[in-house]
């Protein structure tokens, strides 16, 4: 992380309250601060319901914070932008467009010609093993394939920050590893940073430069762990084994706390 480069994402004392003033008022995030440096891959771990998705939606500009500020490349995030594309937990492809039309939708909006869109979509889809099905409609694909197409769609915009919300949950283990590899390659090529939410510790260990653990609701950062191993990583290396043990303990602790709070 170089000092001159503006941070890809900077959250300063961010809080988010859902339906304020109503009986269903929920404090999803409170006083949360984090940085994502230029080309940095940051994984966020936390028990389910801790506000991971809320944090990502704030970063994508789909929601506005109740407190604090969210900055991307030094500028306040006012709304969604192709420079910060997010992949949801479900693929969300448009059923009326073919796979390649879906993947190149962002280019279509910019007025890129059909042939050019087709070519760039083909290049990206080939990386994700989807070139043979690029002319088909999404509903003819398995959920895992659809999710890969959704990731390809987000990457095609060459975002400065790629935001991933548990995107590999629908994929099997082998496919997950391949996707992680492709994702790393492509992100390296496009010089983008990645903000990844997951509850899979191994996924975070394999991918991230830094791992942040969130507390139970209202979410804030509890622990930060830097992983300096070279990629591709051997998850059984002593350093990573120790890191996993540490993370498992912290997350287990938070999950217990969340459970007790829900009981109370």
């Amino acid at each position, binding site marked *: 992380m170089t000092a001159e480069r503006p941070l890809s994402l900077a959250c300063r004392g961010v809080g988010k309250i859902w339906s304020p003033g109503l009986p269903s008022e929920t404090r999803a995030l409170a006083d949360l601060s984090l940085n994502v440096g230029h080309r940095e891959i940051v994984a966020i771990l936390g028990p389910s319901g801790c506000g991971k998705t809320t944090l990502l939606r704030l970063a*994508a500009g*789909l929601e506005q914070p109740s407190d604090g500020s969210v900055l991307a490349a030094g500028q306040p995030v006012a*709304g*969604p*932008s*192709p420079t*910060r*594309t*997010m992949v*949801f937990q*479900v693929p*969300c492809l*448009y*059923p*009326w*467009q*073919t796979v*390649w039309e879906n993947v190149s*939708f*962002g280019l*279509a*909006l*910019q*007025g890129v*010609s*059909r*042939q050019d869109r*087709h070519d760039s979509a*083909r290049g990206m889809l080939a990386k994700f093993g989807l070139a*043979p*099905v*690029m*002319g*088909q*409609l999404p*509903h*003819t694909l398995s959920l895992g394939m659809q999710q890969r197409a959704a990731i390809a*769609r987000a990457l095609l*915009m060459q975002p400065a920050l790629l935001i991933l919300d548990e995107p590999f949950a629908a994929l099997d283990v082998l496919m997950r590893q391949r996707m992680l590899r492709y994702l790393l390659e492509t992100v390296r090529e496009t010089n983008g940073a990645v903000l990844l939410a997951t509850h899979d510790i191994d996924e975070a260990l394999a991918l991230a430069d830094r791992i942040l653990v969130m507390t139970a609701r209202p979410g804030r950062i509890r622990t930060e762990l830097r992983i300096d191993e070279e990629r591709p990583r051997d998850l059984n290396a002593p350093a990573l084994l120790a890191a996993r043990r540490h993370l498992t303990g912290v997350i287990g602790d938070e999950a217990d706390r969340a459970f007790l709070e829900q009981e109370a």
Partner: protein
Amino acid sequence: MPRDMKAPIHDINPVASIGPNCSNGPKARASKARWRAFGVRLCWSLLSVGLFALIWEAAWLAGLADPRLLPPPHVFLADFGAQARHFNTSDRWLITSGEVAARPAALAVLSTVTATATRVLAGLALAAIAALTMGLAARYWPLFGKLTLPTVTFLAPVSAVTWLPVAIFIFGVGSMPAIFMVFIALFFLMLLATVSQIDAVEAPYLEVARMMGASRRQIFLQVVLPAILPGLFVILRLNLFAAWMVALFVEATGVSRGLGQVVMLVRNGFNPRLVFFTIVLLGVIGYLFDLGFRLIERRALYWLPGGGGGQYLDR
């Protein structure tokens, strides 16, 4: 958007195919399978109707159905020539010219049916286009929506029949009041349906578009419009029969010539053969309309998982 369609793009295949190499093979096979399914369905339809007719004929043979009141199919269908004369209402102004007698009966039936069908289709098309445009506009410009939608909600529950005097005040007699009535019967309902369909578009669809940098205009035309079309087709098809009823009603009051006048004639003339002949005719027309609609739907909504074209009721 520049569309370079001259460039060969082999991968565009709007029809959902199974294999990765989607050439003409699976496409042709799919079309063949579809025709077969259609044939099978048609056979069942004919069998169903035939069975119904058979029971009727058997009741006549057994002396249970009085042929004067409940003439069996072979009686009222054989009487086609005599009954079709009544359809000359659409040419009534020609009676004095002696031309009517010279016309073949089938032509009289056809011209009457065409007159009514044209009105139904015109009213339907106008209502659909107007409702879609105004619905999109009401959500695109919130001020416009706030100014218009309460009035629409207020007028929607008013029975279409109530509008008949208005139709006559404005359009007098002829085709126009019938078209207007069909339009009124469908427009308010379809407009409200369009708006509720727009509101029901899944949020992630819109969020993806926003993240990809879509303008509001692009979101409405490229995401909202295709997303609401399936729902609108359902509404349109459900209201197809209502459109027919309204058109027949207007014609029966004598405002316009057409099938509705024959229905009126049937009621006044106490002619059972004509009654059943008209019922069969309306049934066939309704069936054909529904079929035509499904074909259009299949074209427009090729991307739906079921292949588009909605569900057959007679599955």
